[in-house]
């Protein structure tokens, strides 16, 4: 994107004249006071800038102190240059995103990708920060949406805003599913998280629409250390969508998010993620490190379902998990992870059965192409208390070409004799015969691969909310472009 019209002077002027941020909870610390690197001082500054209450600042500091004692984990089957933690800016200056006048000013490569993904013109404009026409009024759409939610008592806002407006709720639940000492990256996130979503669904309420981050416009735009907390009170239901198919170019290499879900008695949470962060260039240089801790607790008769489509990032390292605490609780994990070029993924899930008659389902599809490596790592743990636990796991790998790798690391830890655990795994290569069969029917190579890959991933894609599923299918096609030998 050309910056010839908008100069540094313009930027400085804009920033200094910016008086009110969307939710008015920032203070006036100058950006020069935020040197790179991490220290207690920086953690305090982050907290102060967000006008957080004392308990929140303390919480962050405790996490930071614990983090200092921890060592970076190295057990995953991935190889990457370790981030230099003192060379990262932990508080991104809120750069006012340049508003463009029309799509003509947007990088044509980006536009081409948008078109391939079938993203509507209105959405393309929003994603590229093109000024919206009066006809497409995004503000009124957002307002209607928020009104509907508040009528039902549903709280959905940025976590920063929630800390201000609903401190008791946040304080009660934050860190209860993923404690700040859980792991190296969770500790880091707990100390420096910048934003994320907070959602609370009251008892018995069925959220009438898919909640997505689209409606929580994040002006601060860093996305580096996001923290999401989603609470579904007794008997409630919510479907949440995270991410978008549009390629997200980000200068921040490290993304260490934490997502905590709490499904109380009889509640159901459906959490879908589509991730397409920058995967690095054709030589495997650069690209986002996506190190995420996601975990849910399901109480009695509750259900949590994780669905993910991971196609981006140089390195993806995450295990969305379910703690099946309550009797009859259900946990599900559906995943399609694509790696191409030099990408690496070490992903899977942990299903921990604690209550009685708990059930978990794991369907993992890994697709490797190029020189990439795709690892499934899963744990099915049945505690001695988990009478009548049932698990079904299916891990399928699809290899495209001869230079990629797929590995499966299933861990099964059973301490109760009544458990029934089934595990199936297949590995296949896209056969030339399959491709020729499609070709002979008039389907060209690219479309044939898309067809075969989508067929392979169908069980997972079928779990996504419909519009997301359409985009996700196109995304699979786009991410495997050029992978035919």
């Amino acid at each position, binding site marked *: 994107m050309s910056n010839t019209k908008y100069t540094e002077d313009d930027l400085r002027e804009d920033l200094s004249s910016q008086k009110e941020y969307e939710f008015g909870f920032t203070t006036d610390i100058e950006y020069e006071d935020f040197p790179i690197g991490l220290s207690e001082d920086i953690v305090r500054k982050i907290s102060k800038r967000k006008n957080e209450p004392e308990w929140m600042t303390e919480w962050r500091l405790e996490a930071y102190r614990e983090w200092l004692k921890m060592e970076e984990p190295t057990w995953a089957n991935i190889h990457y240059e370790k981030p230099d933690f003192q060379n990262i800016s932990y508080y991104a200056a809120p750069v006012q995103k340049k508003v463009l006048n029309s799509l003509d000013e947007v990088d044509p490569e980006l536009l081409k990708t948008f078109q391939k993904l079938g993203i509507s013109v209105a959405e393309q404009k929003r994603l590229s920060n093109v000024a919206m026409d009066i006809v497409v009024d995004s503000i009124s759409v957002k307002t209607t949406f928020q009104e509907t939610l508040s009528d039902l008592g549903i709280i959905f806002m940025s976590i920063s805003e929630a800390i201000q407006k609903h401190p008791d709720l946040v304080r009660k639940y934050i860190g209860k599913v993923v404690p700040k000492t859980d792991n190296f990256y969770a500790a880091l996130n707990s100390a420096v998280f910048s934003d994320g979503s907070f959602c609370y669904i009251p008892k018995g309420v069925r959220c009438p629409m898919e909640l997505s981050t689209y409606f929580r416009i994040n002006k601060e735009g860093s996305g580096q250390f996001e923290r999401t907390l989603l609470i579904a009170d007794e008997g409630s239901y919510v479907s949440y969508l995270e991410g978008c198919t549009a390629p997200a170019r980000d200068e921040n290499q490290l993304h260490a998010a934490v997502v905590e879900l709490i499904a109380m008695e009889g509640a159901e949470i459906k959490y879908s993620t589509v991730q397409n962060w920058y995967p690095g260039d054709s030589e495997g240089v650069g690209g986002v490190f996506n190190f995420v801790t996601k975990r849910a607790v399901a109480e009695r008769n509750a259900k949590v379902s994780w669905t993910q489509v991971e196609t981006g990032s140089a390195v993806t390292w995450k295990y969305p998990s379910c703690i099946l605490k309550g009797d009859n609780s259900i946990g599900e994990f559906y995943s399609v992870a694509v790696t191409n070029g030099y990408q690496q993924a070490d992903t899977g899930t942990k299903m921990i059965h604690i209550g009685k008659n708990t059930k978990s389902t794991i369907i993992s599809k890994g697709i490797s192409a190029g020189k990439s490596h795709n690892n499934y790592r899963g744990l099915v743990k049945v505690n001695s208390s988990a009478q009548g636990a049932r698990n079904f796991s299916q891990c399928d790998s699809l290899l495209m070409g001869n230079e990629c790798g797929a590995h499966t690391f299933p861990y099964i830890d059973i301490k109760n004799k009544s458990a029934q655990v089934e595990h199936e795994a297949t590995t296949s290569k896209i056969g030339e015969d399959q491709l020729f069969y499609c*070709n002979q029917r008039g389907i060209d190579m690219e479309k044939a691969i898309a067809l*075969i890959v989508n*067929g392979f991933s169908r069980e997972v894609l079928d779990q996504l909310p419909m519009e997301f599923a359409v985009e996700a299918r196109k995304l699979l096609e786009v991410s495997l472009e050029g992978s035919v030998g």
Partner: protein
Amino acid sequence: MLTIKNLHAQIEDGTEILHGVDLNIKAGEVHAIMGPNGSGKSTLSAVIAGKEDYEVTQGEMEFEGEDIMELSPDKRAHKGIFLSFQYPVEIPGVSVTNFIKTAINETRKANGQSDMGASEMLKLIRGNAEKLGIRKDFLSRSLNEGFSGGEKKRNEVFQMMMLDPKLAILDETDSGLDIDALRVVADGVNAFKNEGNAVLLITHYQRLLDYIVPDFVHVLHEGKIIKSGDKNLAKELEERGYDWVIEEAAAKV
């Protein structure tokens, strides 16, 4: 419609399989190619369809007056060439309906047409499925996954009827079919053929040719057509085997 002159084709390691095949198929005709195992029958159909495992080293191949040697398999399909496979592969997760819909629309797109309308597509699917005795629930199954041999062959003919090609090459379509299934498939092919299209049957056995009567029968032996005749040739082969034809051809040389 299809003109093949002196076609020589080899596999990757250099072994030549087709040693100069000549074949001329006109619209409205049904041709049958018979021959012992290893004669190169399936290779011939694969080469016509454009499978890249085979390299054509000599000869010409024209379809509707156009040289198709340089065309990729999908482009040849767009021109109207259809191959019913001897061993159809499975494509898990892709339903029969979804597959054929994609095939039809990709071909239409290549020929400058818009996608077929949903109701028209549905009517076509139902009609052809009924003609072949294919049940509705079958259509939503993953392509060829868990299908019996007979079901796979029937599905191939179903696709042929849906795509309505100019030249339909049926590679050993009768193998693995019981009498009833054979009759159903033959009826489908007979209903399909007309003055504008052509059928090339590749088969071991006479039996199929009782149901789909050929205009021309050719015997393929060691990569060359050594004898051509009409439907009576097939009957004679059934009675006497292939040896007499091979000897006769050897004597000529």
